[in-house]
């Protein structure tokens, strides 16, 4: 048997038909077709991300400041959790390739165990991604959006750390009339409402001389190159007048991290990848049960494991690129 399973028979005339000139079975060829086309789809997404980023190169959010959370731990740990997710996915890729290897040697039990570990790894990854989404959507500091749709973030002048809205916003008791179903023919449920009103944030900001505003603009040269612009107190007092809306967390319209497109691409690209991981886990489970039932033992070869393995590795491959372009660069 070859290193990669081939079910064709070799004849002397390679291109004369009736054989497999590329040494790959029909199913494997089709898996490769799918992978190449899917790779082009993902490339399209990432290239579009690159387009938006180059377009707003001076104001794009800095990923290190956005993805700083680790479950069960408080504090600022940029990159650590994403690195962990990357490692989990590479690890499950390894168990997958070990399953394929065991399949070539027709070791049913080894294939079962390695497939099982692969599924566990995939599940951990999807779970991590769900957690990361939840954290991203919830947000942590809150921000203010200006008339022009720019995001203003707040900094504590003493520590230099980010200041959350709840640290300084003034609670102003106010009456708020809720629209109810009984009062109108056209009733829509009230949508999402931030914890503080713009007025409360502004008042709190004016009352706390320690709070400064940080804008989206990244210094392009000089000592602070690559850092977001921090305004002085005087400039901040002037800037807060432009504030229109309080933004907490992220949705598809606006987010507290900066450019609106940032969150859109985050949801779209990692969501599409997460969906691939999810479907990969489902396919893995199907194959896993087939292995247990002995389907491939009776068939005489484990090519199906190899094919689903190709898909699984592809998902890992895509993540390597998403990791680089979303979190590192």
């Amino acid at each position, binding site marked *: 048997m070859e*290193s990669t399973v081939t079910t064709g028979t070799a004849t002397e005339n390679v291109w004369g038909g009736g054989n497999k000139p*590329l040494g790959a079975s029909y199913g494997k060829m089709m898996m490769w077709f799918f992978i190449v086309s899917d790779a082009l789809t993902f490339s399209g997404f990432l290239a579009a991300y690159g387009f938006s980023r180059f377009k707003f190169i001076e104001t794009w959010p800095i990923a290190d400041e956005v993805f700083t959370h680790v479950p069960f731990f408080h504090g600022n740990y*940029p990159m650590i959790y994403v690195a962990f997710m990357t490692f989990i996915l590479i690890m499950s*890729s*390894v168990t997958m*390739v070990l399953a394929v290897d065991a399949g070539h040697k027709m070791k049913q039990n080894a294939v079962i165990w390695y497939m099982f570990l692969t599924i566990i790894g995939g599940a951990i990854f999807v779970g991590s991604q769900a957690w990361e989404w939840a954290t991203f959507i919830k947000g942590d500091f809150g921000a203010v959006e200006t008339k022009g749709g720019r995001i203003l973030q707040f900094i504590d002048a003493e520590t230099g750390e980010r200041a959350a809205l709840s640290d300084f916003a003034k609670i102003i008791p106010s009456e708020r009339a809720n629209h109810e179903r009984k009062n109108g023919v056209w009733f829509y449920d009230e949508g999402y409402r931030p914890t503080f009103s713009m007025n409360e944030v502004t008042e709190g900001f004016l009352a706390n001389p320690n709070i400064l505003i940080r804008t989206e603009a990244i210094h392009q040269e000089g000592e602070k190159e690559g850092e977001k612009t921090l305004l002085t107190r005087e400039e901040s007092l002037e800037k807060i007048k432009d504030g229109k809306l309080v933004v907490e967390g992220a949705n598809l319209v606006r987010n507290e991290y900066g450019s609106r497109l940032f969150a859109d691409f985050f949801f779209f690209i990692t969501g599409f990848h997460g969906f691939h991981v999810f479907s990969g886990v489902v396919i893995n489970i199907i194959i896993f049960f087939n292995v247990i039932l002995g389907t491939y033992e009776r068939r005489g070869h484990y090519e199906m494991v190899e094919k689903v393995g190709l898909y699984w590795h592809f998902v890992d491959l895509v993540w390597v690129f998403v990791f680089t372009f979303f979190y590192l660069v």
Partner: protein
Amino acid sequence: MAHAHKLEIFRGLLKFKNNTQKIWGVLIFLSIVTAVEVLLGIYKPRVLTHSYFLGMKLLNWIFIVLTLVKAYYIAWDFMHLRDEKTALRRAIVWTPIFLVSYLVFILLFEADYVYNVYKEGFIKWNF
């Protein structure tokens, strides 16, 4: 065992006794590369963030090159491209490389142009 795996990586610099050993070897290599990426991403050495090549920070070039290195080993050793016939491998690899380079080239140039239009144009958008 008649497995026709090619058991060497780094152009024959590192040879493995069997396929399982090669898989673990590749895992160790990929983990090291990822660790280097993460460390560079956390510490961001000033030398690398303040020097440019073709309009992009040196650090970002390093990230992209390391990513391609990782992609190479995932495709070659995990997806068995190393063991496939040359024609199949080339069809799979060069098609996307050609199309993606073209797309990226065009989109990034266009984006840079749009950036300049915003920067030098008369419409105020950053307010």
